């Protein structure tokens, strides 16, 4: 296996080169494309480091959702970019606005700070021992009691369930934040600005069943192999966004009650579980009885998948639709707009 270091060095070169150019060059569109490539190289790194769970999630997030979010925002924030045939001319700091440019001092100070930081991190990284066991031993010791066979799922849905629970809360908060920047209360009736491309609709019509199947498959895999609620949820979100882009039914056509229900389902399911486990005699919060573990985990995972998928899809669709349509098709929705 003497080829592995070559692979590693190439991968690391690619990661560093991409992030360098991403922050350094002047064309924002190029930066967006590089950012997607960054996600791609990262997921190769996850595979190399034997973290297939993360590679699955990164494949959907890095290659799909992030790219869509960035391109949509670029279209709104920099509408003139990409218009010209030869690409946007890079703009440097103009002389008449020199005061606005970060001065040389700014760069020198930043460099000193970052070099110091890098030095500290370097000593920290190289003082780490070559071998350690971490929590791998502990996890494998208790794996039999967790109700599932896949260690990552056991950690997420059993040993550190509160992490997963609060993480769903963070997702909900992010969606609330996005809704706060919009004059609407949900993604209902947000339409794609242009009539959808027929080829895209045709493709998505073909792909969507596969993707939904993949969602269920990943969810089912979760208890014995890499897969589970997060990966399935992210794939579901990407599928829903793709459906919206193709002008087919998606989160925008969900009935409002169903939409709200699927948003909070994951979080509240775990809340109910927390309440039940706390109120039961001689029980620890969020520690469920071993005999029920497998069924409970499967139930929680299914609910969490739907929540993650719908929250992320709504968030992405809202960002993709931009501000422009607040007075358009969704006008009826804006009656009770939140006071800003």
């Amino acid at each position: 296996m003497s080829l592995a270091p070559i692979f590693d060095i190439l991968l690391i070169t690619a990661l560093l080169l991409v992030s360098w150019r991403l922050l350094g060059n002047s064309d924002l569109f190029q930066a967006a494309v590089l950012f997607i490539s960054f996600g791609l190289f990262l997921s190769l790194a996850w595979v190399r480091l034997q973290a297939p769970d993360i590679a699955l999630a990164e494949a959907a997030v890095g290659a799909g959702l992030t790219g869509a979010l960035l391109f949509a925002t670029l279209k709104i924030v920099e509408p003139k970019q990409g218009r010209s045939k030869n690409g946007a001319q890079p703009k440097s700091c103009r002389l008449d606005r020199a005061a606005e440019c970060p001065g040389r001092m700014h760069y020198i100070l930043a460099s000193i700070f970052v070099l110091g930081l890098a030095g500290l991190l370097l000593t920290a990284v190289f003082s780490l021992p070559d071998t350690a066991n971490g929590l791998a031993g502990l996890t494998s010791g208790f794996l039999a009691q967790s109700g599932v066979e896949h260690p990552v799922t056991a950690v997420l849905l059993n040993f550190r369930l509160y992490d997963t629970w609060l993480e769903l809360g963070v997702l909900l908060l992010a969606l609330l934040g996005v809704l706060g920047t919009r004059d609407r209360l949900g993604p209902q009736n947000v339409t794609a600005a242009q009539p959808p491309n027929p080829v895209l609709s045709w493709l998505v019509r073909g792909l969507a069943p596969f993707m939904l199947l993949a969602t269920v498959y990943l969810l089912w895999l979760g208890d014995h192999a890499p897969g589970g609620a997060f990966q399935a949820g992210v794939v579901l979100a990407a599928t829903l966004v793709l459906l919206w882009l193709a002008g087919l039914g998606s989160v925008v056509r969900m009935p409002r009650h169903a939409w709200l229900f699927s948003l909070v389902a994951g979080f509240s399911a775990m809340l109910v579980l927390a309440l039940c486990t706390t109120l039961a005699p001689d029980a620890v919060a969020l520690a469920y009885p071993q005999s029920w573990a497998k069924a409970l985990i499967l139930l929680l995972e299914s609910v969490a998948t739907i929540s993650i998928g719908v929250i992320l899809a709504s968030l992405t669709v809202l960002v993709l639709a931009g501000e422009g349509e607040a007075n358009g098709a969704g006008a009826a929705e804006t009656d009770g707009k939140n006071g800003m």
Partner: protein
Amino acid sequence: MQTFYLGVAAFLLLTMVVGLIRIFRGPRQEDRLMAMQLFGTTGVAVLLLLAAAFDASSMRNAALIFAVLAVLAVAAYARGPNRREKEIK
């Protein structure tokens, strides 16, 4: 055979690194997206090869998702001008 697969994967990774030049140079936005699309396909090939080398079937699932979801970014790009853009013009 494992070493061979790993070698081919490393070679494909090398072509990706070289292909980055097209993203740097452009000049058109579509050129950059084309390079990205080539990266996506090459990435799928690398994932499949690594899955064979490490004998890990979950990597094939990652390759599957990779193959399909590359469409998402390009579809978002090709969505056509939106309302705000027309206003500015």
